[in-house]
């Protein structure tokens, strides 16, 4: 029937748009990056070879494929070149940051979910409000707070708690502070949405069955908020691994993070090919937690809640 046909086409169109979007703006650029990562640096425009040229036909294509190599991956994965260490330290920093975010974010989200219903939108607004200021400016502000002559050191010295400024800026600690501060909303919001959905009568039932409130938190509230914990943790962990601005501005010279290595490789060493290989490997590293996240989501959908 004509109507059924048009509905079918309409549905196809609706589904096609996001796929086309992903194809054009994610998959194609990613394939270009993969291709560059398999190329060699060259003093040319573009600064790598081979360049794919349709005009040379089949023979040209075969020649093109034969020039691709995994050399850049060998370089990036080479133990002495610092990239492996940077991947490792990125994962460690991101993991510790995520744990800290969870420690800081959970009580905030819990308090928000427990606040009177009328106050909750205002609290939600307060969590989102920092986004209205540029991310860069907010990270710069931390330099002003953490530097030897910054607000924090001055305050502590005025109070007589310390005699000389603490070395805070350009340390891993500053990076943790920066990440926790910047990413907090990404942790709080999914946790809040999980905790807010929690049925209060479940806690009453637990108490009624002889479970004191603190214990009820660990046997009822926390397990039921785990989907929110997983969502928040991955929303923070994934971008934190590739974080560049915060370690660059707040971290020290010995703070190794893959985002910083990539930046150096691209700007200082001007190697498009090696930095592409770094980017592709970063994606491979992050695919694991993303797949875990999607698994959790799928299981939740299955549970029908």
């Amino acid at each position, binding site marked *: 029937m004509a109507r059924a046909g048009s509905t079918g086409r309409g549905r196809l169109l609706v589904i096609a748009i996001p796929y086309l979007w992903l194809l054009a703006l994610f998959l194609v650029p990613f394939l270009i990056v993969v291709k560059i990562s398999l190329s060699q640096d060259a003093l040319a425009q573009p600064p790598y070879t081979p360049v794919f040229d349709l005009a040379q036909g089949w023979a040209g294509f075969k020649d093109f494929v034969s020039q691709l190599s995994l050399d850049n991956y060998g370089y990036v994965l080479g133990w002495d070149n610092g990239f492996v260490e940077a991947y490792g330290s990125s994962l460690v920093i991101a993991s510790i940051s995520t744990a800290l975010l969870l420690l800081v974010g959970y009580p905030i989200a819990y308090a928000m979910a427990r606040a009177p219903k009328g106050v909750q939108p205002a609290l939600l607004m307060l969590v989102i409000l920092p986004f209205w200021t540029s991310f860069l400016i907010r990270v710069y502000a931390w330099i002003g707070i953490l530097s030897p002559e910054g607000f924090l050191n001055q305050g502590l010295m005025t109070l007589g708690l310390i005699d000389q400024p603490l070395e805070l800026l350009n340390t891993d600690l500053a990076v943790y502070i920066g990440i926790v501060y910047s990413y907090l909303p990404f942790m709080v919001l999914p946790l809040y949405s999980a905790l807010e959905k929690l*049925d209060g*009568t*479940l806690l*009453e*039932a*637990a*108490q*009624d*069955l*002889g*479970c*004191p*409130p603190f*214990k009820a938190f660990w*046997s*009822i509230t926390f*397990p*039921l908020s785990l989907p929110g914990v997983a969502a928040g943790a991955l929303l923070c962990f994934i971008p934190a691994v590739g974080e560049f601005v915060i370690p660059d501005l707040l971290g020290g010279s010995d703070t190794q993070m893959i985002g910083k290595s990539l930046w150096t490789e691209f700007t200082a060493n001007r190697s498009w090919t090696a930095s592409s290989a770094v980017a592709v490997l970063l994606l491979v590293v992050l695919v694991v937690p993303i797949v875990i996240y999607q698994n959790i989501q799928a299981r939740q959908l299955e*549970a*029908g*809640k």
Partner: protein
Amino acid sequence: MAADQGRTQTIGAVRRTFAPWDNPAATPLIRFENVVKTFGAFTAVNRVSLDIYEREFFALLGPSGCGKTTLMRMLAGFEAPTEGRITLNGEDISGVPPYRRPVNMMFQSYALFPHMTVADNIAFGLKQDGMAKADIKARVEEMLALVKLESFAKRKPHQLSGGQRQRVALARSVAKRPKVLLLDEPLGALDKKLREETQFELMDLQMSLGMTFLIVTHDQEEAMTVADRIGVMNHGELVQVAPPAVIYEQPATRYIADFIGDVNLLETKVVAAGPDEVELACEKTPAPLRVAQGLGVPAGDTVFLAIRPEKMRVELKEAEAGPLPENAFEGVIWDIGYLGDLSVYHVELACGTRIKVSKPNVSRLVERPITWEDKVRVTFAPDAGVVLTR
């Protein structure tokens, strides 16, 4: 105990004679003393005093917002009384937190833990008591057998039907063998047939476990079926506490008469009040009304005559009918509700008032059924109505 006798007979024998509220020597298990609960300016429970006895099945009945759930939640420990006190076994339980009270509750929403299996849900309360693993396992199996869900132990709540969830909630709340089980609208989410079956199961369960049950419901049939005594609440006050038959046949006020079942309420004036009979005059009929009830009210006072539809007779007015006898009304059939087992006739009196009379359909075929616009006479016996002053 007469264990050899059939179980039903034993239960029947217990039910026949169970009336501790009539025994002045009996000490109540639960005692509400002048309990008041206010939320801001709103008084949810107003000066309620109530005794509930061991092994009693007590129902709190009332419309939504009447304070029955608040009263129950105070016993569970989720709300603290603003005034008055609540004692359990003679001890004031005001300061005792819910997790230390020997009282368990079955929640209206069931409140099953969604991340735990059926068995873990039932075991939850037992684990809190630090019961040995083997004992927990045995008790959980016993509870599952009790509610006939043995094969569902490993399921999660979302994999069960509504009726099955209700059973799990029941099993979980009785697993700890509490002194008192509180049931908050326990059957509200079930369909009618299942609800009726479950009502009788609840009664058997209460008998076999020997527990005291306090049920909160807005369904009067449910309350009347299951309960030994019913406490009717309205606007935070307990208006009458009595066994179901007393509530129905001797309601204390017009509100209760109207709330429980169907009733015709007629405004009347006392003509003469004797020690065991009262004569009333009603504007709706020229006939005098006689009710077999002693009443300490002077002649001329306005009182209300309450008569249930099933306690009146309706018959066609014959052409050569004599003058209107005592306790009779005349009118025409305005509407008929045919319910199968009985028919409800709405009779419009000459003054425009409509009264309801029901009649069991004892025979399948009636030669001349009463139908719309028929002229009828409605009569009732002197002991059919009850005179209410409030």
